[in-house]
């Protein structure tokens, strides 16, 4: 019991202890804020990618695409583990607004809005046709015109406050979209004619996926129209990918493996067909693998952050070590007194470990509270800084985020608090050990040999 009492009294009465508590609190605060924001950004980014892709993609990187996709789609639709399937066309195009001579390169994606919304989060990214995705490609000003859905950053420019100036209805703008159609062998379909496929589409809606690269470079077209533009229509139609959404109770890995197995079987069945060679380039990937190139960079950043904060943790250990070394040096007389009344070495270590535990617990508590308070107001603080000083932590024209993520995760908090306490215990271990093994006579009666 004396260990508890003394540990608490040391904590309260020694001013130097406040520095240890403050050091721990500061470290916990920084780690909580950064990890919460970083984890929020990463999980938000992953979720957006998941929404964009669906659960699984059967596709090829080749712009030629692959044939017989419709048959495979039918096979998939007959299974009991798949909720939605959407074949898509993916290619590159040159786009210029009507009347303008300036054109720029974009990616195009041809899709059926209803099917694609069933397999991905596409429908939720629309603005004007959010509640009626079937009409996504029908401009509100003339539903007979061929429509296109633009990535939001192609359609709108953020204002000074980094907000999009949404209009009540889409502006009547036509875009010329030019593609280089390819044959099944990969040659230019119109080689020698010196022409590309060009068609005019009208701005019908915009898509805000929250993925900067997608929103700034992707134009969505109707599947059939994109297929024609890319030269993939014809007797044997081709597509570039099939996006799949599993039923809610299906685990991603298991679902992907089932699809891969179905694809292998399908490929074998099609082995003798005319365009069977195109099937060799097709892979079956889960959404994470499909977007690996983008997600990996973010995860790498998160890992680097974690490593950096591990160093912050080591610094905490060192600070606690120094503070405890000073505290225990000042308490050598107490250690001698306790030993003179029969307290064991283990009890001395327990006493100072308990003291370190309290420092860690209190420091973590203060740091957590401060972190929570800061995160609660982080978006208000950022807005205030932006309004007053034109300072924004993440430039929204570059980073496709709305609010700064501030949802603290219990698991992350538990890891941070436990780490802080372990850091304190580690920092106090050596001084406690030294104190425990010191001879009482050296501390009680040095001058009286």
């Amino acid at each position, binding site marked *: 019991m004396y260990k508890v009492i003394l540990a608490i009294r040391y904590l309260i009465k020694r001013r130097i202890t406040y520095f240890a508590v403050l050091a721990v609190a500061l470290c916990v605060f920084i780690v909580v804020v950064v990890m919460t924001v970083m984890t929020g950004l990463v999980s938000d980014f992953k979720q957006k990618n998941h929404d964009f892709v669906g659960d699984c993609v059967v596709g090829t990187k080749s712009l030629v695409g692959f044939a017989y996709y419709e048959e495979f789609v039918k096979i998939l639709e007959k299974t009991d583990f798949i909720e939605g399937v959407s074949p898509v066309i993916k290619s590159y195009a040159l786009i210029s607004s009507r009347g303008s001579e300036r054109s720029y390169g974009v990616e195009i994606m041809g899709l059926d809005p209803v099917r694609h919304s069933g397999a991905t989060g596409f429908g939720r990214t629309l603005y004007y046709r959010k509640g009626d995705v079937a009409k996504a490609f029908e401009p509100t000003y003339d539903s007979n015109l061929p429509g296109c859905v633009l990535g939001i950053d192609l359609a709108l420019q953020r204002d000074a406050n980094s907000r999009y100036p949404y209009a009540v209805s889409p502006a009547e703008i036509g875009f010329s979209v030019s593609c280089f159609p390819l044959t099944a062998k990969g040659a230019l379909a119109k080689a020698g004619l010196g022409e590309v496929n060009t068609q005019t589409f009208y701005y019908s809606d915009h898509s805000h996926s929250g993925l900067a690269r997608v929103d700034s470079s992707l134009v969505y077209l109707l599947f059939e129209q994109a297929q024609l533009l890319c030269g993939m229509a014809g007797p044997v139609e081709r597509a570039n990918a099939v996006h799949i959404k599993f039923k809610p109770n299906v685990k991603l890995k298991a679902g992907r493996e089932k699809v891969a197995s179905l694809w292998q079987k399908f490929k074998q069945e099609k082995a003798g067909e005319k365009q069977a060679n195109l099937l060799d380039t097709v892979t079956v990937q889960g959404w994470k693998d499909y977007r690996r190139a983008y997600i990996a960079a973010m995860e790498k950043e998160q890992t680097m952050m974690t490593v950096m904060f591990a160093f912050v943790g080591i610094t905490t250990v060192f600070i606690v070590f120094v503070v405890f070394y000073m505290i225990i040096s000042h308490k050598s007389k*107490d250690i*001698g007194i306790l030993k003179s*009344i*029969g307290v064991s070495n283990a*009890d001395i270590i327990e006493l100072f470990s308990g003291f370190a535990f309290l420092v860690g617990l209190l420091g973590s508590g203060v740091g957590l509270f401060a972190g929570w308070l800061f995160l609660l107001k982080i978006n208000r603080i950022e807005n205030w800084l932006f309004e007053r000083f034109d300072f924004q932590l993440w430039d929204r024209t570059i980073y496709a985020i709305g609010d700064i993520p501030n949802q603290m995760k219990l698991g992350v908090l538990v890891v941070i608090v436990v780490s802080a306490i372990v850091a304190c215990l580690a920092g106090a271990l050596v001084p406690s050990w030294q104190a425990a093994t010191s001879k009482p006579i050296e501390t009680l*009666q040095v001058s009286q*040999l």
Partner: protein
Amino acid sequence: MSKDDFILRAEGLHKSYRMGATEVKVLKGVDLAVKKGEFVAIVGASGSGKSTLLHILGALDRPDNGVVKFEGRDLNQHSGSELNRFRNKMVGFVFQFYHLLDELSVLENVFLPVMASRSVVGWFACRRWAKSRARELLVQLGLHERANHKPYQLSGGERQRVAIGRALMNEPRLLLADEPTGNLDSATGNGILRVFEELNRAGQTIVMVTHDERIAQRAGRIVTLVDGKITDSI
């Protein structure tokens, strides 16, 4: 006199310390026997080894050579935990500089040895008795009104009486006092010695170290330590 009359026997104690490159021999073969209920004063000049001897007798230190027997049992044969128990139950220390814990109140300092020897559960089982015993001791030592004060709020004499209370808390068989009046004025020192005399009259065995012959006169027997050896026992 039978062997059992001796509570403490030290035979051939040697102790040396390293001070830089040189080895300082502090005790050079000390023999000492203390009877139950005796009040022994060990006198000697500064550096004669009297405090070292007291620490060895109280198992705060170990001799390089020689034997200390407490009630017939060789302390060298005790394990670490047995020595801890010995220091907690069998002996009580009173130091020149009181050595109280500033974070604890007077009352807590007094019952600290009981608290230190028990687990949390054990402490809760006996805390009423311990507090009552500590208050009783404070009454005996004239400090009952100071129970909730902190040591730094007391005078030197009062602090030393608190230290005596702590030393007596577990009713030890032997009280070891290292220059208990060395840091006090003569009137206050006399008060402390009167406490020792009363305790001794009640049957408490006391071994006191002092460099002051006049203080030593208050003890029942004086042992003189010169250059690490006992030269005289009156």
